[in-house]
């Protein structure tokens, strides 16, 4: 894809831009949805497109398209150059200059992906469903078992001399099991797994997790409203860590829209909570040799020793903040302008296993699911109140299931109230790419009955 990227840069310069950068993507993917022991749908997808940033001095414009013919690329360059003329001048808007990559050999593509037939991955999805149904007689059904994969080739070229290309692959499978109580009440439970290729997925484990999560919730009631210790399991902790990662982006910070603004070096967490952004973690799904504008990825300590160590920068916020880019320009495909975003957020495992966390909590609540995060959190102040379900913790052990309650706090208070991190870290795709263990929070408002 480096050739169409280079052609798009030339076309944009020819249309009058002073600088240009093109981001090109080519992707092939599959998706299988299984239900009731049959394949419900089978999708084969190919995708390609180019997004172009054009600079007219200090003005920046963007255009994207799927037409990679000579004519299509010429039109793309012209639209990008035209968009730049409409924008206001911004002294920080300039393009990045080339830099030496920190690593050259990241193995991001699993060759077994292409070698696995569609029939084999369909069988994988069917097995996920089968195991979910067979694990427990109280599982009344499965909404859907899904397998999806994608192999991507990404290239960037710019008029400043950036030129790079890499391949990556990923796949995931999940299912949502439905459990039914004796009174006909229903509960759902999610099981999931992810990897670079299908060999990394354990369909039986995914099915079992869904069944266990759903059946554990049968007969759930509401907890008493109070402030108490709360354990967040990795799927829930990851959602909060994702929000924290957004708040640590320099764009939100510089524009005064982050609960972490003006807190560099300040105490923002209990020392038990250690957080890094690591764009080079070989096991991380957001890893790549360079970011969405061709700047090498790296590892950045965000929270260590309870203090805020750094913000995340792309080139724009680096210019504006007189800092260096941390290689955190993210893209959601060729259709979007790059913007600051976390790569892989990694919470360091702690000293207690899951049972140890429960024992330390004593009397409290385990949260295994949250809902309404996108609406229940104020991204500027960090104040949140979100719907939750999970289990009661009594005498340091799991007790009855709980649903229809809310947990409320603010992000910084929650980080400061963390007492322990567990040893059960896993990669979770909710809230970005996050690896986190369960977290014990000393006190949080739980609102139920």
């Amino acid at each position, binding site marked *: 894809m480096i050739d169409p990227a280079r052609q798009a840069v030339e076309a944009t310069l020819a249309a009058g831009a002073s600088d240009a950068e093109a981001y090109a993507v080519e992707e092939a993917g599959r998706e299988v949805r299984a239900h009731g022991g049959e394949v419900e749908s089978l999708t084969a997808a190919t995708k390609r497109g180019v997004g172009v940033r054009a600079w007219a001095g200090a003005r920046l414009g963007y255009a994207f398209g799927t037409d990679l013919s000579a004519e299509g690329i010429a*039109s793309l360059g012209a639209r990008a150059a035209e968009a730049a003329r409409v924008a206001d001048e911004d002294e920080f808007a300039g393009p990045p200059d080339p830099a030496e990559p920190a690593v050259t050999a990241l193995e991001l593509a699993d060759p077994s992906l292409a070698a696995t037939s569609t029939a084999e991955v369909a069988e994988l999805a069917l097995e996920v469903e089968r195991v979910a149904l067979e694990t427990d007689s109280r599982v009344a059904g499965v909404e859907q078992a899904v397998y999806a994969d994608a192999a991507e080739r990404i290239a960037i070229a710019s008029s400043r001399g950036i030129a790079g290309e890499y391949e990556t692959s990923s796949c995931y499978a999940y299912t949502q099991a439905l459990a039914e109580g004796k009174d006909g009440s229903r509960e759902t439970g999610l099981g999931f797994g992810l990897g670079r290729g299908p060999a990394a997925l354990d369909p039986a484990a995914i099915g079992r997790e869904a069944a266990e999560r759903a059946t554990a919730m049968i007969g759930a009631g509401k907890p008493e409203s109070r402030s108490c210790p709360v354990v967040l399991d990795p799927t829930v902790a990851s959602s909060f860590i994702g929000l924290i990662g957004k708040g640590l982006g320099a764009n939100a910070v510089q524009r005064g829209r982050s609960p972490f603004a003006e807190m560099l070096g300040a105490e923002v967490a209990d020392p038990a909570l250690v957080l890094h952004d690591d764009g080079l973690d070989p096991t991380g799904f957001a890893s790549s040799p360079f970011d969405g504008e061709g700047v090498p990825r790296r590892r950045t300590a965000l929270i260590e020793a309870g203090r805020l160590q750094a913000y995340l920068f792309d080139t724009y916020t680096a210019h504006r903040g007189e800092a260096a880019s941390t290689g955190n320009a993210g893209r959601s495909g060729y259709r979007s302008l790059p913007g600051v975003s976390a790569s892989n957020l990694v919470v360091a495992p702690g000293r207690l296993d899951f049972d140890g966390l429960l024992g330390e909590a004593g009397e409290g609540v385990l949260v295994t699911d949250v809902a309404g995060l996108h609406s229940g959190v104020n991204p500027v102040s960090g104040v949140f*109140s979100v719907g939750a379900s999970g289990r009661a913790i009594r005498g340091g052990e799991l007790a009855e299931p709980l649903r*229809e309650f809310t947990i409320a706090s603010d992000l910084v208070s929650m980080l400061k109230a963390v007492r322990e991190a567990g040893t059960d870290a896993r990669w979770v795709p909710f809230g970005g790419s996050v690896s986190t263990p369960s977290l014990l929070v000393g006190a949080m408002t739980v609102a139920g009955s």
Partner: protein
Amino acid sequence: MSEPAELIAPEVAERVLARALANGGEFAEVFAERNAGMTMAIDESRLEAVQAGAEQGAGVRVLSGGTTYFAHVDGLDPDDLERAADEAAAALRAERAEPRPLQAVASTPHAIEQRPAEIPAERKAALLRELDERGRGAGAEIAQFMASYAEVRREVAIANSEGLFTGDDRTRARIGAQAVARRGETVETGAETLGGHRGFELFGDDPGSIAEQAARKALTLLDASPAPAGSMPVVVGGGFGGVLFHEMTGHGLEADHIQKGASVYVGKLGEQVAQPLLTAYDDGRMPNEWGSDAVDDEGAPTQKTMVIEDGKLVSYLFDGLTARRDDVASTGNGRRESFRHLPVPRMTNTYIAPGDAEPEAIIAEVERGFYAVSFGGGQVDPATGDFVFGVSEGYLIEGGRVTRPCRGATLIGNCLQALVAIDAVGNDFEMKTGVCGKAGQKVPVGTGQGHVRIGAMTVGGTEV
């Protein structure tokens, strides 16, 4: 009228459908799309993020037994379309159906007076500058203001092996405003949007007022105290309050959830699910409304479907596949985000019809309760009926009067219980625009209602 042949020639479509059925299958369809759009934003009073996009491509679908085979490609050249057909058919081994010759069916797209693409970009920029000026001018405590503009034109053509050949030409425009107010350490946000299946004429009548509305919400919240926690009567405001019905009932009526047994409304057709004062519709035909289209993304004409009549559940929402399974007609609710997605049953514009009650009286009857004016969003698990809504603007009701604003409130409950607990429906009415996510696809939807009261609901706040 829309001309599908501009996107895909009928003889090419017939060839593609025949290839899609080459290895068998009962039904094949090609969905072709060409879209072009522009977005821009203003932030810190600087016009930025000017983006122009153009895409074209097609999705080919084959149905065989209980399985859907789907492939999509970028590009609309005959070669691209045939490649998609071959990929969709690749894994298929079944008995073959003969496609019928195509018969063009005319559709009447919603009327667009001023095509946004023909309006100079400077005028769109000027609109955002006006929003910025008015938002910032709304009060000294407005610390930040952002606004965005988006336009898109989507031309679609749909051909299937049953001989249907039709299309639609859809233009949508929308602006959004977001204000941040600050007083000391207290920071609050407020947002407002204006959108429609319309052209630039949408912005003819004082569009800048949404900036002031967003600012007013943020300023009001500066005086807010923590929301109460506990069970109490909840009055939901008109317009965007309709999100509540969309989430707690609309999704559960989508036929795919019903057929999988993953909805609390399974087997409830004909039953009383609400008090007789409640009647509700899904209407994809409302002229120029945000969630409207001439035909759905399978080529079925959109329609007005009564879903609840005097408290009784009377209809689910079907796309072609779920209608075929239940041997009924599609209700025109087969929608997809783009040619890269399969159609699924989706709402269009969903609303509670106006009732008899005066909004003031609905509040006056509440001794102690919560008034939820607008939501930041919501989420529901259709299988269990559990839902949660974040309240972006809410007040306490004390002694029949709206007293103080509250921050950080969440409404939480179960669909069936909350629906039957609606004990008052206002005679006011307003529609608002939203973007609904389901199965990884986002589509524009309208939500609407007047003031509605729920007898008892859990409010999750920070004040225990």
